């Protein structure tokens, strides 16, 4: 098999050979093509992500785990993260959005947390256009269809319309969850002699090669579309309850959700991060389809599955919990001493590579970077050229009623924003606030993006995105504890686009440092462009803070007659 068919570049193939000390076999090559894809390896953005400040007063767990965790007080941690599901939503709006919500929820669950709030960032083309309407409708129904069923309230979000998102909408899903800090589960704590289990749905052919798909531009003719993932929120709800029960019964050594590149990625990551070896027996994996090949089993992105590391004597108890929640569960391998990651199939070893090579270690790509020549042109707008409105009242009403400014009720009323009965401020306000059960404290969160500003001035525009999200919290009376971000950008392979990405990350990093708002988790989605052009640079952040009790929460719009208005700032 040719390395380029597997999606590897020449340099990467050479690096792989050097690290293995031999040629990889076909299966290994296919595996590495996915694991070293942009989506899984962050090979284009690692140096940029290192710019973000990671430490803060309240940070319990920074980037590197499935989600970041900040101290929520009273022995609780708030885990949160945002993830993109852009390309899948472009081809299958309902299922793409639904499985995006499902995926981020599992990231939060992987820490042993109970998901308590979601937000969604949606970016669509012109809402007057029929194709966009249908797509947006599918996405909103997908977000709701999944989130409503799993019983996690969608308490806020962000919606932006701009023609650059026409064939490439963005769907960013945020989730936050609560976990007692002494029961937090990690993906780095496995040691030799333990069992590897798969819990949840059976593995099928759906979503194979999804990670690779997320790492290329969208083709006009729809080619290169992988078999689409189907979400089953009902199973996810059972999975949430089962994982919490496993946590509370102290049956878990380590846990990881299965997202991109499924079994392979989740298990090799645990092995690499824990510094151990692992053997996985593919004959033991419960399958849904007949005749699945090893590469399909390795890379399937079937939804609603978790990988567990369990002490051998606790396996029976884990099985009992799985049985109660009517979930499939099977022992599929074990942890060993060393660094190898081995796959068995029909009794043979079909792949055997160092775990450290699979899980990390992808060579970074230093893309060339070049400031767009026409950047100044973007600023050449002359305010004085605008006609003054004849009727200000009418003009203001038109503005408020425009797609950019109108209420998002039509979207957020399709989401259950109240389940769990802790929503103090739901969607429709600058921040959302959720009561932390068992305490008086509230978690306050905001989601922000300003793509047009970032297009005008990537550095300052992106800094402003961070500043706005922190400002919204401050105005509500909350101090930011940490933020999560999703860098939605077009291909990094064009120097001007890479420059924009660089500037944007630098701007965000500076704002986060200045405002003492550490970045605890995040996600990168590149190659968001079609033949019609790239999307606007779209860094999105979700920032979280706390207020001590409900009386200290400052609500917007809580005014009465006779109050005075002040204008504060520059």
């Amino acid at each position, binding site marked *: 098999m040719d390395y380029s068919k597997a999606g590897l570049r020449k340099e990467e193939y050479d690096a792989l050979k050097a690290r293995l000390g031999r040629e990889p076999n076909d299966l290994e090559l296919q595996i590495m093509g996915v694991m070293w894809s942009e989506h899984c390896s962050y090979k284009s953005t690692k140096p940029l992500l290192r710019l973000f400040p990671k430490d803060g007063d309240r940070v319990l767990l920074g980037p590197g785990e499935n989600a970041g965790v900040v101290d929520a007080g009273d022995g609780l941690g708030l885990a949160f993260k945002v993830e993109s599901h852009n390309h899948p939503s472009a081809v299958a709006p309902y299922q793409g959005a639904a499985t995006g919500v499902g995926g981020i929820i599992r990231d939060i669950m992987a820490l042993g947390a109970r998901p308590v709030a979601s937000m969604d960032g949606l970016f669509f083309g012109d809402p007057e256009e029929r194709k966009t309407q249908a797509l947006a409708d599918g996405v909103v129904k997908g977000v709701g269809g999944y989130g409503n*069923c799993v019983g996690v309230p969608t308490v806020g979000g962000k919606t932006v319309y701009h023609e650059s998102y026409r064939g490439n909408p963005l769907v960013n899903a945020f989730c936050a969850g609560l976990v007692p800090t002494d029961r937090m589960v990690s993906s780095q704590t496995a040691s030799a002699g333990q069992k590897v289990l798969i819990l949840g749905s059976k593995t099928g052919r759906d979503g194979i090669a999804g990670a690779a798909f997320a790492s290329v531009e969208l083709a006009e003719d729809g080619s290169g579309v992988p078999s689409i993932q189907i979400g089953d929120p009902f199973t996810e709800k059972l999975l949430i309850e089962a994982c919490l029960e496993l946590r509370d019964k102290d049956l878990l050594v380590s846990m990881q959700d299965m997202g991109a590149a499924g079994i392979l990625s989740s298990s090799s990551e645990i092995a690499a991060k824990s510094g151990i070896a692992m053997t996985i027996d593919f004959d033991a994996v419960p399958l849904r389809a007949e005749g699945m090949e090893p590469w399909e089993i390795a890379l399937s992105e079937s939804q609603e599955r978790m990988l567990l590391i369990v002490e051998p004597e606790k396996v029976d108890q884990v099985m009992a919990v799985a049985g109660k929640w009517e979930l499939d569960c099977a022992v599929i391998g074990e942890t060993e001493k060393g660094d190898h990651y081995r796959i068995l199939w029909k009794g043979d070893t079909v792949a055997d590579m160092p775990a450290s090579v699979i899980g990390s270690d992808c060579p970074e790509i230093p893309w060339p970077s070049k400031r767009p020549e026409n950047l100044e042109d973007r600023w050449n707008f002359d305010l004085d050229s605008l006609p003054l409105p004849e009727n200000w009242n009418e003009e203001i009403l038109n503005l408020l009623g425009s797609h950019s400014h109108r209420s998002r009720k039509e979207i957020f009323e399709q989401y259950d924003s109240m389940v769990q009965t802790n929503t103090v401020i739901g969607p429709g306000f600058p921040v959302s606030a959720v009561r932390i059960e068992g305490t008086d404290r509230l978690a306050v969160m905001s989601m922000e993006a300003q793509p047009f500003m970032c297009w005008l001035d990537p550095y300052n525009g992106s800094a402003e995105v961070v500043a706005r999200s922190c400002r919204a919290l401050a105005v509500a009376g909350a101090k930011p504890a940490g933020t999560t971000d999703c860098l939605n950008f077009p291909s990094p392979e064009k120097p001007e686009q890479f420059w924009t990405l660089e500037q944007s990350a630098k701007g965000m990093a500076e704002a986060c440092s200045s405002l003492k708002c550490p970045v605890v988790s995040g996600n990168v989605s590149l190659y968001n462009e079609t033949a019609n052009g790239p999307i606007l640079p779209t860094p999105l952040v979700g920032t979280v803070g706390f207020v001590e009790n409900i009386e200290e929460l400052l609500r917007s719009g809580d005014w009465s007659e006779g109050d005075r208005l002040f204008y504060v700032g520059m």
Partner: protein
Amino acid sequence: MNVAVVVFPGSNCDRDVVKAIKYATGDEAALVWHGETELPGETDLVVLPGGFSYGDYLRCGAMAHTAPIMADVKRHADRGGLVLGICNGFQVLTESKMLPGALLVNRDLAFICRPIEISVERDDTAFTSGYEKGQVITIPIAHYEGRYHLPENELELLEERGQVAFRYSGGNPNGALNDIAGIYNEGGNVLGMMPHPERYSDRAVGGDDGLPVWLSIKRWIERTGA
């Protein structure tokens, strides 16, 4: 009072109901797994909570009525015991034939989550004595399938017998016949309703117009020693 909140796979308002009852009355409700065959002894009230039992596949509530615990819930109701079905719980009650009618997809084919106004049609039942007849209260709905339907002749009968518990009064959100938001069985001991009283039982999270439901039930149980 002794409350059993049934948990089906996919229920997601079960813990909310327990929380609301605790907040309203101080009583600790028991969560009862759908696979059980018997309710805890001494159960006064059974709550079938909201959510997506069995994923709401096929028809909402259809599969939950096949759950092992449901036989005992029926026995409890037949003995005159109180049963409250909220949202998905209402759907389970109609699918189990413990209440007449069916709940169909909303008129506008969209999930709706927002507080709405409903009028209290009766104040002489176990569930609503804390309200006044005709009182308009605000409680959230959150459903995709809440359009109440009953063949016309039966609907007349339902109205005649005074089985309507709540009606949408500030506009009909889902197209329900006769604006029906909740109904009783003939005995008045089984209530199904689409709005979620447990969501508005605490002002901190939006409102407390749902609180009297729990207080009414508790008072009724204490008075009748049911």
